Structure formats: structure tokens, C-alpha cells
């Protein structure tokens, strides 16, 4: 080996990945426990939370920028996740937690992060008083803040599906859309309904700091659809074995970047390093699309027959490569298929090639779910609940995380499109099934935990 320790090709490969193929660290997310911020008075509780976030995350953005400068790798987002607010706020006797959201929003602005996640409740098996208050506050909280993200876990493999919560979330999503109608229902882009939510997810809008997590932790989400695309473009005739190898090698390199960034950030901030989330997270930018990878594998357009198989193979290869590159893997770890945030998905949806039902099928084999899909504004709350129930069932039976982030865009119907701007992108309104599922949704109660839960 030369004294350089590296082959020039290796150095040029790294530089090319960053400069030409959009390799980046998608997010460094600081998880902060707010369990010690409960108080009988909601405003006191919110102040305690605000002070704690500002204290622990004061240097987060600066350290992120130092890492970008030292290693020449862009870190797109610096973010914060906190303990599900239902657990923090329910010590108070308030029944509206919007105030808490405004304090979180201010704290996020103060430390310079673009999103703070954790306006959340976990109700897979039932509600506490705080859970009820939090969920009822979601529409107003999302309408009156910019940076706060909300999530509600309505099902797990172990607990089954809380169908009362599923029914309620259909209504909450409608209300969140209506309260932000002037901005295309953007409130719903900050709201995720989960099955099997994970406690260490660094990606928004679904991040929260789980109860089993330490006081403060650094989690990293890497990305690099462009790098994977470029790697497989080099081998147009490779069979699937070779293709899997290429993707694994690429995912390995991408993940090592995340591992380095996480370790350095953890050391500089004096906070333990949690996990690297091995995800392929697209953005609306050209060359940063998961759909394009599937198309490069040989699909004329994503959404056609073969899309689910292509995605399954991609997702698995990314995990295999990434798992070897990091000491602690966690979060969601898989390819994301948000419609509005991926130029290939947007185009396929506009052409009518990518249907809602195909997206649902694809969520069986990847993380995370029906993500950033715009649907007609007149879609009923029960239909949205039906969508959530289906997705939760997929997660529950397959022991995986699934989620729903749909936007019933007020005043828009199929043929229109909506622009959210920035990382959230734009989306054509996709048709949903118009037959009613209202009688199914209003039954209420819980779908029992499946046999898969009985593994002790």
C-alpha cells in the first residue's frame, strides 16, 4: 500500500459519492428524555422541557456543522426527539396540550433544528387520560407550530390493534388537514400513525425518544439512494446475486459514514451514541430517488408488476451491507417510499402507473408505510381509518413497523396536485377506494394480538 494509506481511486470514489451522487448524513437526531419535566402545572412542565432541550441541544447544530466541515460530508438535518409528550404532560390537569407544543416549537427554533418529534402517544392497548388529551390536541398543535411532529402508535404485534384509536386517528387526520387547509393540509405531513413504532427512530415525522432510552442519546440516519443507483448503473447486465452484492458493498460504505459521524458527534457532545438507522431516504432532488433504483433494475416505471420484488431485494441488501458496517443498528432501517419526496414516485403516480394499492403491497417488504400520499380532500374519516387499519394489520402480522402519513388535501381531488415545498416535495392526488368501510371502523374495541405474539 502506498504511504497515502488509500488508493487514489478510493479517495475519488468518496468524493464522487458526496459531490455527484448526493451521499449525505440525512439526520443527526438528539433524543432527550423529558420524563423529569412533569408538573401539576402544564406551563411549568413546558418551561422545564424548554429549558432542558435548550441546555442539552445547545451545541447540536454547531457540532453537526463542525463534522460537515472536518469530513466534507453534508449533514442535511439536525433534529430532536423527546419523550412522548402524553407521558410528560399528563401529570398536569390540563386537557389541551397545545401549549406544550408551542414551547417545543420555540425550543427547536432556539437551538436551530428544523423538526422536533415526540408530540406523541402510545395507545396500542388503550388510552390513559394524558393520551386522550394529547391526541385531541394534535390538530391545533400542528396548525399552530412549524417544527413540531406528532405520532400515535395504535397497534403492535404484542398488543393487537386498538380500533378505537384507529377510528379516532381518521378523524384527527381530517381535522389536522382542515386546520391547515391554506397550506394544502400540511399539518398531516407532520403526523404519523404507527404500528410497532420504534423508540430510537431518528427520522421525522415519526421520531420520539422511547421510554427505554437513556437520558440523552445521539442517533444517526444515513441515506444515499443516488450512490446505490450509480453503483448498479455500472452493471446493467448483472444478475440478482451480483446486484445484491453491489448494493451491499455500497450500503456498507454509506453506513460507515454514518457510524463515523455518530461517533464523532457523540464524543464532541458528551452524549452516548445510540444507533445508525440504515435507511435509503429519498428527497425530491434529481438523483436522490429510491424509485429510480427500482427502475434501473429493469422496471419501466415503479408501480408496475415486479416492483414489490425489486423493493424487497433492495431493502434486504441495504440491511445486510449496513449491518456489517455499524456496531449498533436500529431505528427503522429500510428503504423509504414516500410519494411526495421522491421524484420517481411522483412521476409514476402522475402517470397513474403507481396505485395506492401497489404502494400498500410494497410496504409489506420495506420500511415504513404509506408515506406522504396526498388523497382527495373529501375522503371520509372512516376511509382514512380503514387505510390505517390495513397498514397496521400488515405491521402486526409481519412483526414490522408500518405507518400511515396521508394528506387528505382540502378542496383537491384526483387530477390536482399539491406542493408542500422543500424536503416534503409535491404530490399528485391519488384515488382511494370509494366503497365505505364505516360499519367496520365503528365496531370499536381491539383486534386481538395475533398468534405471532405468542412466542415465549
Amino acid at each position, binding site marked *: 500500500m502506498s504511504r497515502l494509506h*488509500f488508493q487514489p481511486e478510493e479517495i475519488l470514489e468518496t468524493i464522487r459519492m458526496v459531490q455527484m451522487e448526493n451521499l449525505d448524513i440525512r439526520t443527526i437526531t438528539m433524543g432527550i428524555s423529558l420524563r423529569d419535566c412533569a408538573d401539576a402545572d402544564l406551563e411549568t412542565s413546558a418551561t422545564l422541557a424548554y429549558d432542558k432541550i435548550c441546555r442539552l441541544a445547545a451545541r447540536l447544530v454547531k457540532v453537526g456543522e463542525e463534522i460537515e466541515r472536518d469530513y*466534507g460530508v453534508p449533514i442535511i438535518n439536525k433534529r430532536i426527539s423527546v419523550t412522548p409528550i402524553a407521558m410528560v404532560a399528563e401529570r398536569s390537569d390540563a386537557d389541551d396540550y397545545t401549549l406544550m407544543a408551542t414551547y417545543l416549537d420555540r425550543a427547536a427554533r432556539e437551538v436551530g433544528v428544523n423538526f422536533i418529534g415526540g408530540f406523541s402517544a402510545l395507545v396500542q392497548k388503550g388510552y390513559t387520560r394524558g393520551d386522550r388529551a394529547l391526541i385531541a390536541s394534535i390538530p391545533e398543535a400542528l396548525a399552530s407550530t412549524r417544527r413540531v411532529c406528532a405520532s400515535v402508535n395504535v397497534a403492535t404485534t404484542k398488543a393487537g390493534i386498538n380500533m378505537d384509536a384507529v377510528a379516532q386517528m381518521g378523524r384527527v387526520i381530517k381535522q389536522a388537514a382542515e386546520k391547515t387547509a391554506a397550506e394544502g393540509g400540511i399539518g398531516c405531513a407532520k403526523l404519523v400513525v404507527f404500528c410497532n413504532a420504534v423508540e430510537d427512530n431518528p427520522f421525522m415525522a415519526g421520531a420520539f425518544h422511547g421510554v427505554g432510552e437513556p437520558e440523552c442519546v445521539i442517533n444517526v440516519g444515513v441515506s444515499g439512494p443516488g450512490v446505490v443507483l450509480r453503483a448498479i448503473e455500472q452493471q446493467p447486465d448483472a444478475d440478482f446475486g451480483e446486484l445484491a452484492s453491489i448494493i451491499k458493498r455500497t450500503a456498507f*460504505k454509506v453506513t460507515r459514514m454514518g457510524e463515523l459521524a455518530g*461517533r464523532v458527534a457523540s464524543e464532541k457532545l458528551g452524549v452516548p451514541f445510540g444507533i445508525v438507522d440504515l435507511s435509503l431516504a429519498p428527497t425530491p432532488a434529481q438523483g436522490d430517488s429510491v424509485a429510480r433504483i427500482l427502475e434501473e433494475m429493469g422496471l419501466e416505471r415503479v408501480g408496475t408488476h415486479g416492483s414489490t420484488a425489486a423493493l424487497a431485494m433492495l431493502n434486504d441488501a441495504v440491511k445486510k451491507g449496513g449491518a456489517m458496517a455499524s456496531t449498533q443498528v436500529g431505528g427503522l432501517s429500510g428503504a423509504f417510499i414516500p410519494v411526495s419526496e421522491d421524484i420517481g414516485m411522483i412521476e409514476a403516480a402522475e402517470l397513474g402507473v403507481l396505485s395506492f394499492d401497489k404502494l400498500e403491497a410494497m410496504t409489506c417488504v420495506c420500511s415504513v408505510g404509506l408515506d406522504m400520499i396526498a388523497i382527495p380532500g373529501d375522503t371520509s374519516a372512516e376511509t382514512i381509518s380503514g387505510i390505517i387499519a390495513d397498514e397496521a394489520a400488515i405491521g402486526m402480522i409481519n412483526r414490522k413497523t408500518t405507518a400511515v402519513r396521508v394528506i387528505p388535501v382540502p378542496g383537491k381531488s384526483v387530477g390536482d396536485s399539491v406542493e408542500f415545498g422543500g424536503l416534503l416535495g409535491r404530490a399528485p392526488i391519488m384515488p382511494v377506494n370509494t366503497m365505505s368501510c364505516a360499519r367496520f371502523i365503528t365496531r370499536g374495541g381491539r383486534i386481538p394480538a395475533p398468534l405471532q405474539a405468542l412466542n415465549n
Partner: protein
Amino acid sequence: MTAQSTRIIVSVIGQDKVGIIASVSAVLAQAGANILDISQTVMQDCFSMIMMVDLEKAGVSFEELKRLLDQKGNELGVRIDAQQEDVFRYMHRL
């Protein structure tokens, strides 16, 4: 994690022309940065040079050196990057 290395990788990519190496070396010399190794290739007209540089005895900070190199890159019409060596060690070595 081991203490941060004082070694950096300087990469220069762009159109070939007379005096690129001399100009970049001069910036490094003035900064007191020691060049440990150089590798250079020219493909068609595209010039790429990679230097391993030790900043242990350098008189300027990494941040300042990055700024000086960037300035020189603009003058020469080439792109000059400086990155901590660790990023390559992490990506390509176990």
C-alpha cells in the same frame, strides 16, 4: 474512538493547467503543513491530485487552511477539498 488524526486529505479536481501542484504546495508550505505523499493523474484534460498532509506542526487551523485552499481553487478554476483522513479510513478500511 482514537484521538482525531492530524492528517488530512487534500484533493484537487479540475481542468489541467500549468502550475496547479506548485500553487497548492505553496499554500500548504506557507501554512506550515507537511505534505506526506502526492498522487496525481491526468485523464483526458481532467486533472486530479490527492495529497496526504500532516497538520501537526501547521501554523493555521484546519478551518483556515480549508478557506485558503478554497480561495486558491477559485483562482485556479479547480475544486480543492480538504477532509480529515478518518472519513476515508472509515469508508474503505476496517
